[in-house]
């Protein structure tokens, strides 16, 4: 049983207009977790609870073996955190920030930092208030990566980056994974990135975790079956069907437990299957959210 880099058990937090409920999350050491959810779903809150910046009202949080928020300082020595709404000091330069980090963290790797400067094409002498959004994100990542943390927690790391910058960032993140003791948890709207580098994917909506599974299982279990109805076809009551879309005789059903049985059942209910399609993570995510919202308010 591999060690857990992150473990949240029955975590909850109450705000006036928003509630985080029953959050169970486990990230094994050496893996990458993609955290996907609409705006306001609770991603940032969950991440901040994970870092000990917000104290949970219920439940237990353990990061790198440390109980949070009690041992947050011990944990933060080994965690690199980059968030989209984080800002460096505008009047200072990147070099100043790098010196600050080097003075705090013994694990700061000067050579790696220099490499990242080149790879990310950043100018150390530039004042942080004059940099573009993409450069700021890359600067924050540099400051986090160069001290080789055991856990990287990233809130929207590729949002607002141009395709080249995105590719550079993903490449650096994947280099982190070369060390099997280092893990990454990142939240993103960019489902392509999540689909590409995540080992495990967690969907969150309205303060609840909808699903948390390893990526290949997600992609294996979900299918869209396109059909041509043969008189009297109805998907009502068919088990395993998440969603049906129909226009006249043509339509498609979505299943999250794809197997030959499901295909058979749809055929027996009166449909001719014309195509079986794999779904992108984005489509799976949307279908999950729609279903979970229907369950709450039928």
């Amino acid at each position, binding site marked *: 049983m591999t060690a857990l880099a992150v473990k949240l058990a029955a975590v909850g937090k109450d705000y006036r207009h928003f509630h985080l409920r029953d959050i169970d999350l486990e990230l094994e050491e*050496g893996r990458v977790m993609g955290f996907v959810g609409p705006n306001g779903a609770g991603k940032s809150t969950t991440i901040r609870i994970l870092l000990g910046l917000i104290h949970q009202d219920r439940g237990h949080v353990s990061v790198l073996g440390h109980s949070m928020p009690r041992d947050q300082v011990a944990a933060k020595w080994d965690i690199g955190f980059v968030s989209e709404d984080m800002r460096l000091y505008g009047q200072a330069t990147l070099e100043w920030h790098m010196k600050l980090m080097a003075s705090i963290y013994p694990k700061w790797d000067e050579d790696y930092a220099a490499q990242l400067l080149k790879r990310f094409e950043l100018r150390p002498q530039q004042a942080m208030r004059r940099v573009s959004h993409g450069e700021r994100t890359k600067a924050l990542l540099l400051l986090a990566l160069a001290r080789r943390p055991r856990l990287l927690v990233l809130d929207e790391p590729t949002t607002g980056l141009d395709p080249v910058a995105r590719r550079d960032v993903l490449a650096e993140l*994947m*280099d982190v994974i*070369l060390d*099997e003791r280092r893990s990454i948890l990142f939240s993103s709207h960019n489902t392509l990135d999540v689909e*590409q*580098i995540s080992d495990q994917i967690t969907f969150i909506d309205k303060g609840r975790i909808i699903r948390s599974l390893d990526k*290949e299982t997600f*992609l294996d279990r979900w299918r869209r079956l396109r059909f041509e109805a043969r008189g009297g076809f109805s998907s009502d009551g068919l088990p395993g069907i998440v969603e049906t879309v129909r226009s006249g005789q043509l339509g498609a059903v979505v299943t999250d437990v794809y197997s030959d049985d499901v295909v058979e059942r749809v055929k027996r209910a009166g449909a001719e299957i014309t195509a079986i399609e794999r779904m992108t993570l984005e489509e799976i995510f949307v279908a999950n959210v729609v279903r979970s919202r229907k369950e709450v308010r039928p």
Partner: protein
Amino acid sequence: MHSELVISQSDGRPMYQQVMDQIRQKIAVGDWPGGHELPSIRALAASVKVSVITVKRAYMELEREGLIVTRQGRGSFVADDANIGPKLQREELQHHLEEAVKRARLLGMDLSELLDLVRWVRAQALKDER
């Protein structure tokens, strides 16, 4: 960073299959001969920029097919099989046939109808060759 394989997200096939196909190709053309040590799962994942779990799955499936062998604690190696070329090609054929059988079932064809179609296709192919 130089990558040995290239994964495309616009390719309709799942990523683990793309990885498998490219490894198979490398074996079939002799770039990775029998006994050659495959990169570690993490190293390949990092160089191709795909998740470790995807590469792990690709390696597992290739091992199931007998194309590679994983030795506990020592890594994965291309199977030491003299027949690997023809074996691979036979597997590729089997893969295509699996596709055909699946589609036939979807269309509601039974075995004899499928075999008739195979015979017809073969006859056409032989005709074209002449």
